[in-house]
């Protein structure tokens, strides 16, 4: 899993039926010091409570598909938790 910051949301009316009702958020991946790293991804919100500016952690590939309910839907990134605190030694 990796840390990320929610940078916005995506609205799509026409989509795969299995994605119905899914919240799609734009996530900027972060490094261990919470600096931006790499390109943004669109992630489904498996905890249903993530929003703009939240520090989150996410999974990718099959793990993302498994995180959703119903499971194994066509997504490749999913937010699986909202971070309260990151404690990293320098």
């Amino acid at each position, binding site marked *: 899993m990796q840390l990320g910051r929610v940078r916005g949301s995506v609205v799509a009316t026409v989509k795969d039926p299995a994605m119905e009702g899914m919240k799609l958020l734009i996530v900027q991946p972060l490094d*261990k010091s919470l600096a931006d790293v790499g390109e943004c991804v669109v992630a489904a919100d498996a905890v249903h*409570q993530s929003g703009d500016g939240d520090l989150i952690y996410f999974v990718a590939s099959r793990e993302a598909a*498994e995180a959703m309910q119903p499971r194994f839907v066509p997504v490749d990134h999913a937010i699986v*938790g909202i971070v*309260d605190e*990151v404690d*990293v030694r320098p």
Partner: protein
Amino acid sequence: MKVGRVIGNVVSTIKHDFFEGERLLMVQLVDNGEDYDGYLICTDVVGAGSDETVLILDEGSSARTIYGIESAPIRSVIVGIIDDIHELDT
């Protein structure tokens, strides 16, 4: 599997049900004794502590097998604590 060093932890209240009661550790990836660009947020099945060198399983199917949960949205798991590494000079 990968080698890493535990550098911290992530505290999270709102999360996917699977992570309930799981420790989330920040692990710096290590190659040949040197840190390299990358970290993983891992769960832990061996009780690793801060600053310990650990063995990381980073593959989804094996991770799901460890937990015995077919739908577990997990890929990176600390599965060992490393005592010593011998690497041949090349």
